[in-house]
């Protein structure tokens, strides 16, 4: 934490860590819901499925340095150019690279809004940063780019981040860095051949300073993954390629942390987080199986979501559906 501001400061002393994670995850979902209502569209189901995974990473699992990014992200200046000192990385919001610090890579870059919300909940980004989301001339882009807060590479094409993270993990292992590597993946990326190439490579080179947390929400753009292109049994497939796998309820922070501590000497660890893309938002149920991007077709529909937002609370949720 950079200490300059922290939306959770008031509760820090009184809450247990898992309560803090759940509160932050609720904050992530609420911010994305607010944004979706306000701007008539957003990657809302991804917030439902991944908010607790991201909150657990930022608040419990990762050993990151304080954010070195401006709480209000900079405007877009330029794309990277060879040898240019102006090249800027949004990775600074995860702390400056240091031998003993962890690194975080979010692969499915369309989760950007969810990541920005997570950075806000982790005290690494100002809430007002979202006002710049998808605005011309800004860096808080809809599909996170290298200059977007929390990103340090171009993941938008999918499946390339794991390979890059493996290269970074390998380089740092050779250098003797103690810092660890965390990759957030979506289950759809296991339809890409490159993901499997990356796993076989990490297995071959015994890259074990890396853990991938996978949002297994079984959803993709065209609908349910099992209908579009099945990847099950994912657990066994990954094991067959040389990874260690732990399967958990992706809405249970205690289970996620326990799974992340699974021994995986000489192999990469994959934590398959089974998630619900309508988690805590029954209002999304009627949209199945098309949950990839939520947009309202009428004002009436938007009003229903606005009303849901006004009553959306962590307390109400825990009464209705205890974790």
């Amino acid at each position, binding site marked *: 934490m950079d200490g300059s501001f922290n939306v959770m400061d008031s509760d820090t002393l009184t809450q247990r860590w898992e309560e803090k994670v759940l509160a932050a995850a609720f904050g992530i979902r609420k911010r994305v819901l607010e944004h979706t209502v306000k701007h008539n569209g957003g990657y809302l189901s991804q917030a439902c499925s991944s908010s607790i995974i991201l909150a657990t990473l930022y608040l419990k699992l990762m050993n990151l340095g304080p954010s070195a990014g401006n709480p209000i992200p900079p405007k877009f200046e330029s794309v990277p150019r060879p040898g240019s000192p102006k090249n800027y990385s949004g990775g600074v919001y995860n702390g400056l690279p240091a031998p003993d610090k962890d690194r975080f890579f979010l692969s499915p870059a369309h989760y950007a809004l969810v990541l920005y919300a997570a950075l806000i909940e982790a005290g690494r980004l100002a809430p007002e940063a979202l006002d710049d989301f998808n605005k011309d001339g800004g860096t808080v882009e809809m599909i996170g780019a290298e200059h977007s807060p929390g990103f340090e590479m171009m993941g938008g094409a999918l499946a390339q981040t794991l390979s890059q993270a493996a290269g970074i993990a*390998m380089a740092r292992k050779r250098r003797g860095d103690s810092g660890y590597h965390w990759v957030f993946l979506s289950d759809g990326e296991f339809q890409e051949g490159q993901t499997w190439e990356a796993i*076989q490579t990490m297995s071959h080179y015994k890259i074990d300073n890396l853990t991938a947390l996978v949002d297994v929400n079984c959803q993709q753009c065209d609908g349910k993954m099992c209908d579009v292109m099945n990847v099950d049994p994912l657990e066994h497939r990954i094991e067959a390629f040389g990874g260690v796998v732990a399967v958990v309820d992706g809405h249970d922070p205690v289970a996620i942390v326990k799974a992340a501590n699974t021994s995986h000497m000489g192999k990469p660890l994959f934590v398959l987080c089974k998630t619900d893309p309508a988690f805590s938002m029954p209002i999304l149920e009627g949209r199945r199986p098309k949950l990839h991007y939520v947009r309202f077709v009428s004002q009436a529909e938007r009003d229903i979501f606005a009303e849901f937002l006004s009553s959306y609370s962590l307390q109400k949720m825990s009464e209705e559906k205890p974790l």
Partner: protein
Amino acid sequence: MMIETKVHAKNFVDWARDKPRVVVLSADLTGSTEIAEFQQAYPDRFFSMGVAEQNMVSFAAGLAREGYIPFIHTFAVFIYRQTLSQIVNSVAYSALPVKFFGFLPGITTPGGATHQAIEDVSIMRSIPNMTVLEVGDATEIRTVLDVVYSLPGPVYVRMLRGEVPRLFSPTEPFILNRARVLSDGCDVTLFTSGICTEEALRASSVLAARGIGIRHLHISTHKPFNDPLVDDALKACSGPVITMENHTIIGGLGSEIAERMADLGIGRKLFRIGLMDTFAHGGSKAYLMRKYGLDALSLVRTMESALSVKLDIHEQDLAEVHIQDVHSLAKAEAL
């Protein structure tokens, strides 16, 4: 003309000795890309990546982000055709110093269409942040390494292996964005690249003997492409311009010259020798160069057409020609 063998294999080991950041990644073509000696000399700096090029390119990007300078070695087709998205999104956008050494340019392999890189220059030079180079002889194979190493961003090199001629003096190294002026004349302006330079030289003394003045420039930098020597050659004369490349005529050297002439507002008739928007098939280099019109005789026929003359030059005239070491006009003692 001297023929040398395995120039890169021998040279690279020495060159890389004092460059610990340089690492090599190979996709199961270690011997075929003359990098086995490097693997033996520096096993710690050699990464066997298997037949998995997409991961190899992104993995190299990760190494580059941590201070290494990855030299990827494989056949050219497996770089730009297999991993274009990885080149763009993992490497080029971020301007990372990943260096791509693509072997078997154009018809230099009997491997057929799957192995012949015929549109690599076209594709690679259209990627922002990418520098695109091509070697034409042993001197360039050796000295392109310093150029590649000195550039802070990604570089693609159209590389040669096996038996290669030494056309240029070892004391005249590869210089970025600088053509080699091989002959002076004003009837025709000729630009050649890669193996086509050697091929054009087979015809040049015969053409000179027929009184044709050729301003011949060897091009080894495809991007950037704003060399004053090229501009001067385009401005100096008004006759036809001929380009000759071991590549499709779309997007390669012919297009580079066409673009440059248009940029400069120079209206000269352009004749592009190369693969005429066609795939090739498997066969020997000599057979393919003849079949697809990339050889010295094809240059002669194009000259005839460009100048509306009949030169009465035949294959046997060219076969008798022995190419001498070529010296640049930039040097006082040069021819």
